[in-house]
Structure formats: structure tokens, C-alpha cells
């Protein structure tokens, strides 16, 4: 029995698409049997996984702090919904336009990122996010203001609305996840990590820091835009409060809890946070206290999140391996010497 475990392990590590797709199929089958409420939650997890996967590229891999992704997510939802409502455009066209548009908008965020880093970048993106939120509320002629608007849902293969958006989201998220995961295992992933860990050394080794930051912003914005477009069809009702700062912080919690710089974490984080959020739905106060405590607790005691623990279980032994960052290695950690070599 040891052999299959070994091969599952290395297949997972090597970036094979078989396992994620198999998991997606299982999730699809389970999803179709769920009642509408649970399916709604599951779909949220799926959509947020896409969003957090993108956010992870930006914050986890590239070390760029952004507070604008809830706003980008919101723009995706609004553009998708409003194009259908105002212009009568079909959903796929609206979704595509929103994704492309948000990618463009998010790419512009690299401009502050070229000059700023750390908290300064965080605050600059925060100001942008608050400004977007302000526009959503105050440009009522187009956005219907603070009250929000009814966004059309979708129906495919004669399924009901929730099932339709669930399957659509699952397919797109799986594809998106595989692509992003593929990307971070190539030289792009190494460049992301390099500008995070030591951007001066990265540049001296030929990494174009500007281009790399731009790609990280574009990619994460694209994920946010697509996720937003899916979310508008899921919610059926789009309002500014779904995309405020509170949501942004929950997204951050998802990324941190799952594990910054790990693709697996992008799925675990949303699942746990959304589960907890449902448990605490009746008390906003407790929700904030518990999520606040979770964030502090993880930063202090489990800074790499949950995903590395799972990798460790998959690896089957406690070796010192690279748990975050790109995994270009086919057999990472299995052949490494276990003794810590001593110099001097």
C-alpha cells in the first residue's frame, strides 16, 4: 500500500492536473445533491477560492499588500450585473467584459506599487478601494446607489439558478486554479517570490521587477473580476456592502488561514472562513472578535497557515522542505540530506 501513497504524493507535488480535477468532480457530485442553502455556501467557497488564489499570487507569492481586491471584486460584480441590466448583454459577454475590465483596472494599481511598498502601498490601495466604494454608493444613476440592484441569475442545462452558477463557478475556478498553479511553478513563480524576498537581488539577477509586479497585479485582478462576475449571478442581488473593507479583511483572513504562498491554501482558507462566518451570522460582534483573534493567532503561531501542515502529512515525514513558494521540484525534499550541515 505504500506505493500508491508515494505516487499520489509525487503526482500532487508535480502539479498534475488529475487530482484537482478529480476533486472538482467529487465536489460537483456532492454539490448537486445539496439543498439550495448549502449549495449557495459551497458556491461561495468556490468563488472565493478563485479570488483568494489571485490574492495569494499578489500578497503571498509577491509580497505586495493590497486592500483593493474587495473593490475589484465589486467592480467585477457590478459590471457583470449592470451590463445585463442596462444594456441587455448576455451573461457570458458581460462576465468576459468585467474580467477584462477589472484586469485592466487592477493593473493600474501597479503604478502606486512601483513607488510604494509595505503599509504605504496598503494604504494607497485602501484609499482607492474606499473611493470605488464611494462611487458605487453615490453614482446612483448607474449603480442604483446604496440599495443595490437585482442582478440576473443564470440557467444552464435546465438546472436551477444556484446549480447553474455552482457548476459554472466550479469549472471556471478549477481551470483558473490550475492555470495559476501552473504559472507559479514556472519561472514566473520564482520571480514573484524573488521580488518578495529580496527585490534588489532579484533585479541584479535579471528579474524585471516592474514587469513582475505588473503581472502579479493583473493576474490577481483578473481573478477578482471573474470571481465578482460569478458572485453577481450567485447573489442575485448586488449591493456595495458586499464589497466593503470588512469583506476585504475577511479575504485577507482566508489567505492567511489557508497559507500565504500556497495554492492549496487558497481553497482551504475560504472554506474555513465561510463555514465560521455562517456559524457567527447572528452576531456581527462575535464574528469580528473571532476573526480578529484568528488573524492574530495565525500570524503569531501558524504564520504559514494550514496548507503546509497538509503538505507535511502528504510528505509523510517531518523534513525541512520549502513549504511555500513555487514548487518546480519534482521530488522536493525526498532526496535532501536531513542533517543540517555546519559551516565554520
Amino acid at each position: 500500500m505504500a506505493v500508491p501513497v508515494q505516487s499520489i504524493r509525487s503526482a500532487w507535488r508535480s502539479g498534475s492536473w488529475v487530482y484537482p480535477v478529480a476533486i472538482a468532480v467529487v465536489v460537483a457530485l456532492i454539490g448537486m445533491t445539496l439543498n439550495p442553502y448549502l449549495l449557495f455556501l459551497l458556491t461561495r467557497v468556490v468563488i472565493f477560492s478563485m479570488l483568494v488564489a489571485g490574492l495569494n499570487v499578489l500578497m503571498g507569492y509577491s509580497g505586495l499588500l493590497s486592500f483593493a481586491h474587495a473593490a475589484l471584486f465589486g467592480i467585477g460584480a457590478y459590471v457583470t450585473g449592470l451590463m445585463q441590466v442596462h444594456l441587455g448583454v448576455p451573461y457570458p459577454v458581460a462576465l468576459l467584459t468585467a474580467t477584462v475590465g477589472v484586469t485592466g483596472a487592477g493593473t493600474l494599481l501597479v503604478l502606486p506599487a512601483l513607488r510604494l511598498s509595505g503599509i504605504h502601498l496598503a494604504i494607497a490601495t485602501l484609499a482607492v478601494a474606499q473611493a470605488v466604494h464611494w462611487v458605487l454608493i453615490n453614482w446612483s444613476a448607474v449603480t442604483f446607489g446604496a440599495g443595490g440592484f437585482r442582478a440576473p441569475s443564470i440557467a444552464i442545462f435546465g438546472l436551477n439558478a444556484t446549480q447553474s452558477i455552482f457548476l459554472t463557478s466550479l469549472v471556471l475556478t478549477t481551470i483558473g486554479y490550475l492555470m495559476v498553479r501552473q504559472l507559479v511553478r514556472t519561472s514566473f513563480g520564482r520571480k514573484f517570490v524573488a521580488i518578495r524576498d529580496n527585490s534588489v537581488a532579484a533585479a541584479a539577477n535579471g528579474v524585471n521587477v516592474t514587469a513582475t509586479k505588473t503581472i502579479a497585479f493583473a493576474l490577481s485582478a483578473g481573478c477578482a473580476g471573474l470571481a465578482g462576475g460569478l458572485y453577481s449571478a450567485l447573489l442575485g442581488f448586488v449591493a456595495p456592502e458586499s464589497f466593503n473593507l470588512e469583506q476585504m479583511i475577511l479575504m485577507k483572513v482566508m489567505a492567511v488561514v489557508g497559507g500565504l504562498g500556497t495554492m492549496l491554501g487558497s481553497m482551504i482558507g475560504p472554506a474555513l472562513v465561510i463555514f465560521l462566518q455562517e456559524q457567527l451570522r447572528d452576531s456581527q460582534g462575535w464574528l469580528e472578535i473571532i476573526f480578529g483573534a484568528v488573524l492574530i493567532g495565525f500570524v503569531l503561531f501558524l504564520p504559514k497557515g494550514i496548507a503546509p501542515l497538509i503538505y507535511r502529512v502528504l510528505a509523510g515525514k517531518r523534513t525541512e522542505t520549502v513549504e511555500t513558494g513555487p514548487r518546480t521540484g519534482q521530488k522536493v525534499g525526498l532526496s535532501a540530506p536531513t542533517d543540517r550541515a555546519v559551516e565554520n
Partner: protein
Amino acid sequence: MLDIRNVSLSFGALKVLNNASFSLGKGEVLGLIGPNGAGKTSMMNVITGIHRPQTGEIRLGGIDITTSKPHEIAERGLRRTFQTSLLCSGMSVVENVMLGLEPQPAYGFWGALVGSPKVRQWEEEARQKSMEMLDWMGMAAFADRPGSSLSFGQQRLVEIARALVSRPSVLLLDEPAVGLTAPRVDELAEKIVSIRTEFGTSILLIEHVMQLVFAACSRVVVMNAGEVIADGDPKTVTADPRVVESYLGRGYYAES
């Protein structure tokens, strides 16, 4: 290979480089020595585009790189190591070395996103090359360890491997012997000499450990307070009274 002409650099009122000039010949190992704060690291930062000098000109193989960006200079075949930098902790040792090969992989963004066969092929080759480079530096056993788990001296050697893996025409080393024991320093000197003989790389070596300078360098440039005060073969230069005065100290004079 590398010509530095009349370069000056100031940080506000602080003049760090003052009209400094020297050149590095093809296939030469040139030592750059001087007291702490003389501006050696700043010189290296100016050459690699991290700081832009206020005046002066830097040419690499005849091409003006004074205003080029760091990554452009790296792509032109000039690589360096840092005095205090560490490997990227989020990557394994071999991935750190692979970073040295990144500038232009044979695949683009879309290829990487869909995982085209080209990607796999390039990645495998890059890994192969990096492993060979690590092996050459005697660090292959650490290939899959996280960068940050190595000792400072080991990280140095990996950093050299990363700088060399793309076979640059010029290599700048900033105090590579810091924290190494004497036998290790001798090994490093041998390595530096064989970098030159095997890869034909021109090397600029900043170093305080004179043992290494004498073993590896055919010529030495001495800096003090931002100025180049001597330039010549190691024996002559270290006998120069001005150098002894400003850097080596009177004791050194008396000993030799």
C-alpha cells in the same frame, strides 16, 4: 570589459564616490580594496544600476550602461553577489540558482499559464544547468533545502552559483569571504581563479581578507573616501605608503 570613468555619487550632502575611474580587463580578476565606508559597495551598486551616479560613465563591453536598469544590466551579462544579502527564503536552493537563468525563458506568460511542453522542457533544462552549477560550487547536496536553512557562508556560495549560472561575462563579488575560516578562504580563492579559467569571466572582487586578494587577484584597485588612490599589481600597491596609511595600517608595513 568594464570601464568606470569619473563616477561621482552623493547621498544628499554625503559624497560617497568622488570622480572614481578604473577598468576591468577581459578575463582579469581585479581586487577592489579599501577601508570600511570607502565606497566599494556603492561603486558596485552604481555599476549594477541600483544607484545612478550624478556624473561619470560606465561602459560594459563598450556599451554605455550608466542609465540602464539593474535587470537590463544583468541581461547584458553582468552579475553580482551582495555583501549582506541572503537567499530567497521561500525557495529551495536550486530554485534560487534557477532564478539566475530567468530573464528570458523560451516561453511567455501564456505558455506558463497553460503549461505548454516548452515550459516543461525549459524548466528541466534550467534545473539541470543549475544543479551542475551547484555541483561545481560543491553545494549540490543542499539543492532541495530552503534557501534560508543554510549557513551564511553556504548561502554565499549558492549566491555565486546563481550569479554564474547564466555564464556572465563579468562577475562582481562583494566580500565573499566574510565569515569563512582560513581553509575555506583558500578553497574560495581556487574557485575564483577557476571561474576565470573555466568560464572566461572577468571578476571584480571586493575583499578585506588579504589572503584571498593575493591568491586570486592579478591587479588591485584601492579606494579611500570615495576616491581611487592606487591601481596596480598587488605587491606594488600594498607597498604604496598612501595605501598603507589609509587602509592597511602601519602595523602591516612593519610586518612585511
